[in-house]
């Protein structure tokens, strides 16, 4: 049976979607005929100016709105039809969608298109979205999917494909929900694909690295999960425990891709690796061995050394020698989630290290020649103004060793699946939290605007110190603040304030679809002055 793997918007466009290339490689290595289709990148490459910010992560909310997605796809029906034809043209027996919260509605839409175009095709949805039971509940009614998968595609898909090929019982394929009359039935836990060393290499034969924004790097997730349990963290929940490829396995894959992508005419020649691991150094022995291999056996030694970037935790074994070895192995940058300069807040966050160790490692890493990026959060529940000052002091002290800071543009969110979300009381957060960004502490001292304001002060300080600030937003920080506050006040039904910020935003970006749609939604609400209404009408017209 032929299988197509599909990525819908919105997703990253720097490099091919990891789940697709990973699963494609794996299925092919089992002899399963597999093709990949990335609608996200396909649309992104053809985007018009009006929707160009739709792929900026901070403005990608529209994709979470089913009505908007249907409307948008309807407006580009020719492109969607052609894409569907291309998929159907492969004559697949199974269409497998990699679904996250941000791609859910587009996946539902496309599943429907494909089902109509190719009779008898089976559709499966899998991916991070289904860690959330809410999605399991609704996906069968929102889409024509036949199966929903929970867990690693490497374990789930081969068994399902075998069963579909041979007419075997679906009940014996673990990790699936399937339809049985009006009910949905769960086949049980599929278990993790625990031996990452056995995972086939990522397959870029359909989704070529050069067709994506960066074009010169391999993005690799060499481990799953994390060895720490930070209170605010939601990402570690997407894998149980911690699994990691061996250093040898990582080195094999990197070498493979560099050789496969070698082209004497090109200068860059896949010169970079972005490790997408939540943290690369959960096991320091693995890092050491990996560095040894990269030093002794640089992939394509006759080319410039491969450079790599990784997220890292503040591990006490990151001493000077180790950091030097990391540098010698080609590491360009380490990204640390420092988050706070306050020892007390670190404890609240359940981060198992001390501020001084972090300072030492940042300095040593700098001296080893590594670029250091540090992430910061603002207004973690329990953080006082005094604690925040310690964060500022931290930057004053070690800012000179930091290549750039990455202040969180969500400041501090109560994320789904985080320890914090499950223990609101422990953190003094006022229940219920209806919006992950707009929560407040029970004492009312820590609100979204407070957090935003701390972030602004932090950015100001950094700029003053000459520390580069990477906001990670495609617009400007100022615009992002207006955009965020507009949404925040709209959410709190303070429409006059919302309008004030949206207007500021529109002055700079008058065609922004998302902001225009918000303006349309609020312009007849109570509390707006007539001057304001007129101002808003300038952008959306009277009837808009």
């Amino acid at each position: 049976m032929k299988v197509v793997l599909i990525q819908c918007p919105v997703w990253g466009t720097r490099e091919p979607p990891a789940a697709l290339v990973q699963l494609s490689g794996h299925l092919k290595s089992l002899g399963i005929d597999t093709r990949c289709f990335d609608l996200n990148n396909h649309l992104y490459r053809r985007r018009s100016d009006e929707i160009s910010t739709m792929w900026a992560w901070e403005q990608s909310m529209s994709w979470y709105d089913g009505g908007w997605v249907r409307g948008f796809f309807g407006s580009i029906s020719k492109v969607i039809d052609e894409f569907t034809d291309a998929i159907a043209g492969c004559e697949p027996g199974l269409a497998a969608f990699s679904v996250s919260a941000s791609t859910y509605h587009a996946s539902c839409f496309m599943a429907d298109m494909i089902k109509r175009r190719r009779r008898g095709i089976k559709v499966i949805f899998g991916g991070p979205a289904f860690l959330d039971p809410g999605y399991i509940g609704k996906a069968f009614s929102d889409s024509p999917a036949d199966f929903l998968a929970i867990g690693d595609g490497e374990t789930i898909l081969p068994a399902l494909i075998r069963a579909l090929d041979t007419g075997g019982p679906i009940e014996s394929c673990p990790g699936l929900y399937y339809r049985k009359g009006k009910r949905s039935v769960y086949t049980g836990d599929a278990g993790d694909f625990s031996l990452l060393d056995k995972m086939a290499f990522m397959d870029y034969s359909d989704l070529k690295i050069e067709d994506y924004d960066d074009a010169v790097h391999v993005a690799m997730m060499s481990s799953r999960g994390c060895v720490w349990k930070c209170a605010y963290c939601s990402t570690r929940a997407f894998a149980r425990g911690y699994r990691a490829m061996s250093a040898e396995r990582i080195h094999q894959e990197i070498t493979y891709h560099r050789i496969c992508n070698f082209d004497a005419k090109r200068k860059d020649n896949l010169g970079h690796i972005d490790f997408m691991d939540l943290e690369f150094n959960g096991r320091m022995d693995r890092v050491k061995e990996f560095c040894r291999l990269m030093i002794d056996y640089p992939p394509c030694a006759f080319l410039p050394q491969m450079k790599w970037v990784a997220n890292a935790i503040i591990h006490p074994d990151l001493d000077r020698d180790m950091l030097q070895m990391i540098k010698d192995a080609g590491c360009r940058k380490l990204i640390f989630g420092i988050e706070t300069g306050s020892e007390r807040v670190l404890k609240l966050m359940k981060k198992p290290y001390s501020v001084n160790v972090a300072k030492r490692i940042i300095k040593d890493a700098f001296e080893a020649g590594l670029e250091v990026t540090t992430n910061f959060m603002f207004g973690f529940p329990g953080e006082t103004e005094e604690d925040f000052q310690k964060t500022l002091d931290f930057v004053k002290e070690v800012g000179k060793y930091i290549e750039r800071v990455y202040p969180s543009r969500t400041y501090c969110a109560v994320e789904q699946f985080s320890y914090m979300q499950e223990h609101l009381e422990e953190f003094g957060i006022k229940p219920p939290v209806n919006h992950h960004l707009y929560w407040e502490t029970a004492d009312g001292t820590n609100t979204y605007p407070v957090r935003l304001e701390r972030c602004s002060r932090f950015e100001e300080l950094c700029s003053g110190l000459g520390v580069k600030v990477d906001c990670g937003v495609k617009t400007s920080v100022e615009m992002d603040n207006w955009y965020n506050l507009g949404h925040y006040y709209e959410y709190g039904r303070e429409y006059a304030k919302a309008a004030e910020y949206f207007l500021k935003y529109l002055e700079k970006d008058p065609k922004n679809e998302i902001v225009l749609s918000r303006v349309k939604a609020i312009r007849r609400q109570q509390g707006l002055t007539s001057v304001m209404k007129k101002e808003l009408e300038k952008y959306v017209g009277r009837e808009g």
Partner: protein
Amino acid sequence: MPTDRIDNSAVLENARLNEEEYRERKVCLKSYPQAIFVQVDGPCNHECLFCSRPKVYSHFDLDRFRSRYEDLLMPVLTRVSRINITGSGELLFLPEAKRNLDYFNRYVHAEKMFATNGSSLVPKMVDHIAVSGNRYTIHVSLHSSNENLHRLITASNSYPVVMENLKYIKKVKREIENLRINYIFVMTSQNARNLKDFIRLAYGNGADGVVVYYYYVYRLDQKSASCYFIKDAVNDILREAEEELDSLTGKDGRQMDLILPPRFGVEYEMSGALCKEAWSQVMVNSGGDIISCDVAGDSRENISGKSDFMEVWNGRYYIDLRRNLIEGKYDCASFCWRANPNTVNDFRSHVITRGKSEEEIRELLEVTEE
């Protein structure tokens, strides 16, 4: 069995008996094969003109191999003098390549052999092989001595990568004795004229041998590239190749093997010799299929479900094969130029029909009449 303590005399005794049984044209054998060919399939980065690999195929998994076949194959693995670990794609590009090599290295008594397009034969792997203490013969399927031609044949940009790897091997080979490198030249109408330069390259790089094959046609679109259609030119090219090597050895003194395919239009004396592979070698793939050699026809045996290797080795497939070979009835004698060099003049010996329908075979062979 602790394989590093295998009694080498058992290997020698098996080889002696196997030779004897072959000489005596025994159909049912007491000896085990002298060579085992384990199809280790891996990912590939080339799209060679003449490649026979299927569009999708499953990659070798050591644990699967061991759990399914190790017990059955143990009497073979412990007696063979050669283990060939080649399949579709590059075995050194498998995620667990080192671990796979380590496994086969446990059968220290046997020489290891594999083919590679050279791009995966990176210094890390060469060092790993070198320190293993095992004897290795590596066939580097290069087919060309220059980048453009290499690109044409392999549809890849990897020539400079391969050259760097070969440079490294040359260096390592000076220090160790357990490594033999043969450069492989699959000759098509496109690269035939490059053979002389190829020999010079191999010689300069310290290769132990150059092995030239005619290329087998697997697909209709590959037909025109067969050497069968440039017979006269090929004969000249083969002669010049020998002269080139003579002149190189004459100047330098270093010997290098040159194994050439039979020439066209020459009457080769057969002296009753018959292809030995059905006596001396067994090939097994990841599905447990057993065939006698890489150009064998469609019929095959499967090892799964057998309780003893001898059920395969002296089963219907091998018995028929050996009997037919002895009686001269088998395809090999009529269409395989390795078994019978005189068949080189018949286009059928340049075509592999395995897995093809009758219609496809007819189309493939049609060209002879054209």
